[in-house]
């Protein structure tokens, strides 16, 4: 079942990228999929209607909820991150005037968050961050938020 939803999300992303003028080849490379499948998606041969309905619901959720669902669909974090970026065009930020540096977010599975040795705050390594969104919910001060990403 999660695999089906993953396909549905991929289909939505493929169509979106096509609309943005990307070539089928580029889309296939980006999503690490076979070109023929991308071709199917673009020509309306989606996974099932039901899958597409659920997938649409997911991507229409507010980003901080949507990303957690998409993140949970696969262990391939490179793919989930790409899908999230493509759908929401976001990155995760810490609001310094809320962050008290309690260190709970440092438990990030991907080591994307570290304590700033020069101040009492944390720093996100955007390359390591897979946009799983766990830190947003973990933070007791609500200091993490999704923000518009500038450039992929």
């Amino acid at each position: 079942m999660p695999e089906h939803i993953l396909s549905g999300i991929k289909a939505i992303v493929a169509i979106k990228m096509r609309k943005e003028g990307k070539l089928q080849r580029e889309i296939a490379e980006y999503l690490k999929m076979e070109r023929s499948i991308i071709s199917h998606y673009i020509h309306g041969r989606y996974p099932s209607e039901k899958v597409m309905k659920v997938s649409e619901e997911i991507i229409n959720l507010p980003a901080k909820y949507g990303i957690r669902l998409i993140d949970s669909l696969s262990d391939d974090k490179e793919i989930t991150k790409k899908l999230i970026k493509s759908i929401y065009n976001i990155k995760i930020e810490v609001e310094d005037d809320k962050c008290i540096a309690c260190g709970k977010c440092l438990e990030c599975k991907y080591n994307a968050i570290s304590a700033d040795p020069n101040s009492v705050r944390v720093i996100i390594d955007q390359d390591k961050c897979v946009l799983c969104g766990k830190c947003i919910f973990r933070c007791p001060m609500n200091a993490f938020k999704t923000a518009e990403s500038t450039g992929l």
Partner: protein
Amino acid sequence: MIGGMIMKNVKEEYDGIIKISRKGVENRVLTWEDHVCVGCGICSEICPTCAIEMGPLGAIFREDIEAPKLDISGEKCVLCGMCASACPFDAVDLKINDKSIKELPQYPKIKRGISLDQDTCVLCEQCELVCPQKAINVEREIPERKTLVLGEIDVNKDKCVLCGICAEYCPADAIELVPNEMGPSSINPIKDIVIDKDACVYCKVCEKACPHNAIEAICYKCPLASRIKKPELYNEITGKTNIDEDLCVSCSWCERVCPVNAITVEKPFEGELIIDEDACNACEACISVCPCNALEFPKAGKPGEKVPKIAVNQDLCILCGACTHSCPVDALKVKRTKINMTEAKAPAWKKRFEKLLAK
């Protein structure tokens, strides 16, 4: 379940210590010690997650009940360390991977302290007498008694009638009549006369007072009642005034009584303590709580004169706020205008520290 990987806080309580710890990428341990805490409540004011609740301070300090001065919720505490950073008395500490945040320069710290110039100090002991925390101990060695007081005294037992007149005159209480256990076999009321040579100053008053010329005293230091040279003696006084900085609350009482300005105290806040006369019911809670002994019941005034229910010496108050937390009727308020602290670089921390200032 959100997160999933986060280790839960572990709370331990023993011997007046509360310890909250969390293991993970960083191992964090928060420790609060009741015997160091003065109950000022600054930690509870600054805590961003409202994890600290003050106990019934008035009753605790009056020793009506035995309870810790505060409690820290193991569920609410996120181990950020703001309480440790703000505590002026170092009653709370946060260690991140075994390192105290007090040693980490990026963490702000409320500054206060005390310094003593030993060269200026004249070892008068005034500071030791006033210190409300018993944090000062003056060790002084004065020249031996015989360098100042030296002489001889002798009672001629043949002439002495044991009348005790000498003892009544003695200004040094150095003469004692030893009572006799009277009985038919030993009929005298007084057994002997004893002179305490450690107390006698050889002033010769007894010699003059004795109606029987039974006492002879000689003072070697002032055979002609000449004066003793003071400077010579003063140079011989040695010693050291010790201040226990862990006990000191920087109330400045010692600084204010020091006759030679040898002590300098740095206070944690500027501002004033405001007392609401109408609200105060003179319950004494604040007086018993105050670590600075800065509050008192005013002495009665002249008839008809209006005397406040409670009085504060603003000079001695450190604006810690312990009294405000103890007051059952909220009659006290600290109005802090400035915090004496190192810079809080992080904006969230800065905002929380500013909460300690008057609104």
